């Protein structure tokens, strides 16, 4: 029944490994860039606030496919930006991570901003009364509490990101979706089985993440 799964010919595990790598690198990158963006959006400097708002609104309303294809055709093939990659596989992977980070960071930023909203005003007022500066109020008092309250939304961002890594197939990164495209074209008599295998792969990737982080979010939630 599973004859079509010729692992010599189709590198199934390798493809899912690329998917996982895309997700992990992009998650770390978008967590950092998203936090910086959230900091900008609540900062006392109007120019930074404006930049943060504009960036989030523009990126959130652009299809991820456009971001990634533009990174490949525009950045790489037209402007020759290679991000230090040597062969086309490496360059494609790095461009995909860049695009995923640029896109996903906006959702991290919005999640964090709503987390900042849950921190009681008294916390920041007390911190200011102690003479802390804006950066200290944000990094020592507000953000740690905000992070603890947005684990569940961030888990949803991470799950959406894991699913969004398939968009990297549009610029030829050899991850799961691209392998599935190849396989259902070659093994056209067992398309339901092929689809089930890949669907199962993604369920395995996303379901435990959701359960684990759901548990974490209950553990770390600030009890008020």
């Amino acid at each position, binding site marked *: 029944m599973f004859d079509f799964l010729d692992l010599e010919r189709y590198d199934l595990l390798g493809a899912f490994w690329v998917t996982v790598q895309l997700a992990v690198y992009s998650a770390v990158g978008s967590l950092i860039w998203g936090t910086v963006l959230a900091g900008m959006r609540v900062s006392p400097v109007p120019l930074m606030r404006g930049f943060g708002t504009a960036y989030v609104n523009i990126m959130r309303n652009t299809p991820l496919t456009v971001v990634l294809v533009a990174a490949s055709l525009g950045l790489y093939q037209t402007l020759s930006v290679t991000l230090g990659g040597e062969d086309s596989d490496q360059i494609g992977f790095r461009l995909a991570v860049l695009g995923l980070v640029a896109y996903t960071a906006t959702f991290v930023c919005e999640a964090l901003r709503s987390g900042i909203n849950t921190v009681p005003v008294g916390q920041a007022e007390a911190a200011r009364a102690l003479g802390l500066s*804006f950066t200290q109020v944000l990094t020592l008092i507000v953000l740690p509490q905000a992070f603890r309250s947005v684990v569940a939304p961030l888990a*949803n961002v991470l799950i959406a990101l894991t699913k969004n890594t398939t968009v990297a197939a549009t610029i030829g990164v050899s991850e799961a979706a691209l392998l599935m495209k190849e396989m259902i074209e070659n093994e056209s008599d067992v398309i339901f089985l092929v689809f089930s295998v890949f669907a199962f792969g993604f369920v395995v990737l996303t379901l435990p993440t959701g359960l684990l982080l759901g548990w974490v979010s209950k553990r770390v939630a600030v009890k008020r």
Partner: protein
Amino acid sequence: MSDLSVLYDVPGPRARRRNWLYTVLFLVVLGLVSWWVLDTMADKNQLAGEKWLPFVEDSRVWTTFLLPGLLNTLKAAALAIVIALPFGALLGIGRLSDHRWISVPVGAVVEFFRAIPVLLLMLFANEAYAQLTDVESEIRPLYAVVTGLVLYNASVIAEVVRAGILSLPHGQTDAAKAIGMRKGQTMSYVLLPQAVTAMLPALVSQLVVIVKDTALGGALLGFAELLSRVRSITANYGANTIAAFTVVALLFILLNFLLTTFASWLEGRARRSRRGSGAVVTEDIGSDVAVVSAPGDGPAGGPGGGPGDGPGDGGVGKTH
């Protein structure tokens, strides 16, 4: 913490000077990045007038490529939402059923299709149509895109519907029972009509997600939507890749921005409404999980409630 200025004091002379310094530094960084981008573009001859002017001067770029592409994007999105709505409503109501033999399988279907990337569904649908049906190959990409979008979004809408119905006060069901309504009547005459008001913002936000996802069909299935027109434009107007992407992205951003604004307007109206419960279903940030902000923890819907976001407002992030 709706007024974020609580994070910092009213700036005095020193703070104002520091803020100016940060502004200047930030401008310098922004300037350097823009200069690098423009310089690289100029290097590769992407700033030349003939690459950008067609979009202003030559109406054929619009009539032959961009507008038909935009039309296809809208067509796929509209078909997807129209077909997904009834399915989603059925799945959402089915998941709320008192009979476990209905609610459990429906729940499994919903969770399954939500866990799978929409691109996999589109690729599979495309191949399935090619193998199993005699849908003509010209129209097959549209079929595949719409099928993938419907399967995925029906399950998302199911969750929105479920959250919308659960957001209603329990007294509504009790009252309907008290006057002798059957379960089906309660759902169709009492619960659903009220839930629709609470669900509308989330449904419009979902349209943004659908519009964005149509671009996948253009990139991998040969569906002639807006993004796929970049290649035809660059082939006809002298490799103006950057210009073509800029225009296409702007069109997407404009379209989605209009939808997002409409969704937040609807949300504001639903919250202020005195007729509804004041509860609003919005989408959770960055994902497709519906979140209900009940009147108790969000801005109150009643006349006594003040404006502004209350703490614990689950519906702050509006769209995906």
